[in-house]
């Protein structure tokens, strides 16, 4: 085992897959010679050559469309969109093409494309470098949607994504690239070496897509969350002094309904936490699913803690970010409800 931060774990996953599978190609803006603006592809072009690790023109629609063409022609493309906020020029290619190719050709064509993209706020990135658009993609039929919360999962899930026969949009919460973040920007940064999930095997391993993980067992209330907010929720649960069960959803599509609902059926209470905006956010799907599956076990209305329904404001980042105080308040309200 090695100590890795999330950038190194992602780099390692790409390295492993480039080494194992000659069909894997990695490309995107600044990913080749430079190694990516977040360094996720550092050293890979030197190691595997510029026909397998490529810089691209600045054209997200072109990047995804080219990935589809390569995928159809037998490659396993891993495309990087530099920020999730820049993914929208590729939206038509993802929604109308990538997601539906298998369906509309009755399985004769498909493109096993992985799209990696950094998401989330907390880096003073304003509205064009902070978004969490996972819910926009979970609403599309035919693509899998993944968001890891730590280096170990990031590597295992990225390897599974690349090996998957279906297209995957793989969101990387950039606030936790270098260390877990508990939601308090005034505390000194904590590196991944302090966290058990910063221990990452150097070789190949896979974490199955579609499996959530119980990161903290508990009996009083279930907290469903993913990405950066897993760590914020852990901090909030410590503050709230409740025996909460925290579940890292990890994969939004397909969703591990069993793990989620087994927990809520046990605790009878549910708080859903994500950084993305609330209205029609992925939390709405989680809430509906829990209500449908666990209605008779619920002791209280389900609560959602999310980003406000506004663009991500530069100056008010920490008023916007759904920090521990809001999660604690939601947990308390759910605990007090009769």
């Amino acid at each position, binding site marked *: 085992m090695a100590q890795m931060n999330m950038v190194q774990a992602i780099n390692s996953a790409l390295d492993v897959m480039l080494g194992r599978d000659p069909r894997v190609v990695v490309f995107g*803006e*600044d990913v*080749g*010679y*430079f190694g990516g*603006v977040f360094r996720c592809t550092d050293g890979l072009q030197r190691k595997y050559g*510029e*026909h397998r690790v*490529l*810089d*691209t*023109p*600045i*054209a*997200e*629609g*072109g990047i995804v469309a080219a990935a589809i063409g390569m995928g159809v022609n037998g490659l396993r493309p891993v495309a990087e969109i530099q920020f999730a*906020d*820049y993914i*929208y*020029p590729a939206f038509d290619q993802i929604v109308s093409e990538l997601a539906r190719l298998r369906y509309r050709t009755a399985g004769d064509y498909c493109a096993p494309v992985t799209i990696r993209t950094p998401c989330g706020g907390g880096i*003073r*990135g*304003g*509205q*064009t*470098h902070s978004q969490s658009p996972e819910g926009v993609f979970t609403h599309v039929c035919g693509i899998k949607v993944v968001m890891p919360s730590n280096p170990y999962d990031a590597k295992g899930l990225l390897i599974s994504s690349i090996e998957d026969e279906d297209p995957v949009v793989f969101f990387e919460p950039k606030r936790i690239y270098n260390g877990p973040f508990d939601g308090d920007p005034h505390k000194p940064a904590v590196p991944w070496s302090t966290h058990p999930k910063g221990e990452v095997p150097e070789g190949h391993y896979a974490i199955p897509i579609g499996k959530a993980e119980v990161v903290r067992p508990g009996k009083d209330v279930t907290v469903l969350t993913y990405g950066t907010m897993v760590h914020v929720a852990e901090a909030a649960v410590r503050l709230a002094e409740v025996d909460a069960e925290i579940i890292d959803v990890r994969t939004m599509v397909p969703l591990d309904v069993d793990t989620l609902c087994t927990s809520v059926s046990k605790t009878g209470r549910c708080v859903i936490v994500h950084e993305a905006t*609330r*209205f029609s956010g992925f939390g709405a799907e989680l809430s509906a699913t829990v209500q449908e599956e666990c209605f008779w076990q619920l002791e209280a209305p389900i609560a959602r803690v999310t980003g*406000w*329904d*506004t*663009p991500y*404001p*530069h*100056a*008010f980042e920490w*008023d*916007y970010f759904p920090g521990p*105080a*809001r999660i604690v*308040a939601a947990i308390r309200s759910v605990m007090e409800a009769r």
Partner: protein
Amino acid sequence: MTQSRLHVPHPPARPGEKPDFSYLDIPPAGHESRPDTLAPAHEIERLGTGMVRVLDEQGRAVGSWNPHLEPEELQVALRHMLLTRHFDERMQRMQRQGRISFYMKSTGEEAVAVAQGMALQPGDMLFPSYRTQGLFIVRGKSLVDLMSQCLSNTRDMCRGRQMPIMYHWAEGNIFSISGNLATQFPQAVGWAMAAAIKGEDRIAASWMGEGSSAEADFHHALTFAAVYQAPVILNVVNNQWAISSFQGFAGGERRTFAQRGPGYGIPGVRVDGNDFLAVYAVTRWAAERARASGGPTLIEHVTYRAAAHSTSDDPSRYRPKEEWQAWPLGDPVKRLKEHLIGIGEWSEERHAALERELEAHVTACWKEAVTYGTLTDGPTLDPMSMFEDVFHDMPAHLKRQREELRGLTAAQHAAAAAKVSGGEG
């Protein structure tokens, strides 16, 4: 048997290698002749492969593109360019000191925004990119306002909602800068179409880097502009580098960016972007053409991004450190200065005095700007204002969220106050 092979563009030099700009075709100043303003696009395709240059190696203004500006106008231009440079330097330093979160300099490219801003009419609408801060300076936006935006303070025209440098100025007819690339290019065309629909004599102009010209929005802009012969000037600022990708990754290895214009039936003009007089003259030509129903023009400004892409970037990882010194088109500020000295309208002493004056001005502006607050020190904007302007009228769900935040903030203040009084007791 034949076999295809993937071509991957390579910049002429990487770190540790000797800078090499031999790929650039640079004709002598005065070589291109200025065509009639309404010359048909197909008759002036040569403008896309040549390079309009007015200032020669000795700093003289030569050839038919010479705009024959008054010395006073040139002195104003030099002041604007120098002010842009001093402003950039100060804001970069303030970012390094943690006073602002981010910055992007335009060093080495000041002539593009300043010359074009001066060549256009105040009523013309500008759709800027993130490296054309000179447009705001030419149009008279105060540095205090620009700095306040970078500080997200109580005077910020964006009310704290945008990252630094994403300015706008409605009264000055300058549109909002987007963090997403190329989006403003076809919007400028739409604005120009509206001007034509309304029968106005105002025109639009927009800017993007050569790297962004790979985006589909570039194609949308040129297609719409050509179809409707919209009164618009579309500028590709070819500063050779898009973060780590040299201009070959945007298609610059095969054709100039200006040459794309004729493909759409639009004149494409390649200009020495570090030559204030050439940029000014080409812009005037394109503006006259647009105003006279001659339709759009695509201008490629050949320049060099002397600074890092942004304060988050480290160019020493991907290009030789000495490239800027080796850049064959020089420094736009220095070239205009030498021209003015050459015609007897400037001196080293006046230049040094101007630099001191501008530096003092920038310092005074910064001192004033921080009185309106910084990211960390008051006065601060009211966080409740973040819910405003999502819609014209605030819907109920946003009002509920605002009240939730208000309650939370009050509770936090109460808790903090209790902690303080507890500590004292």
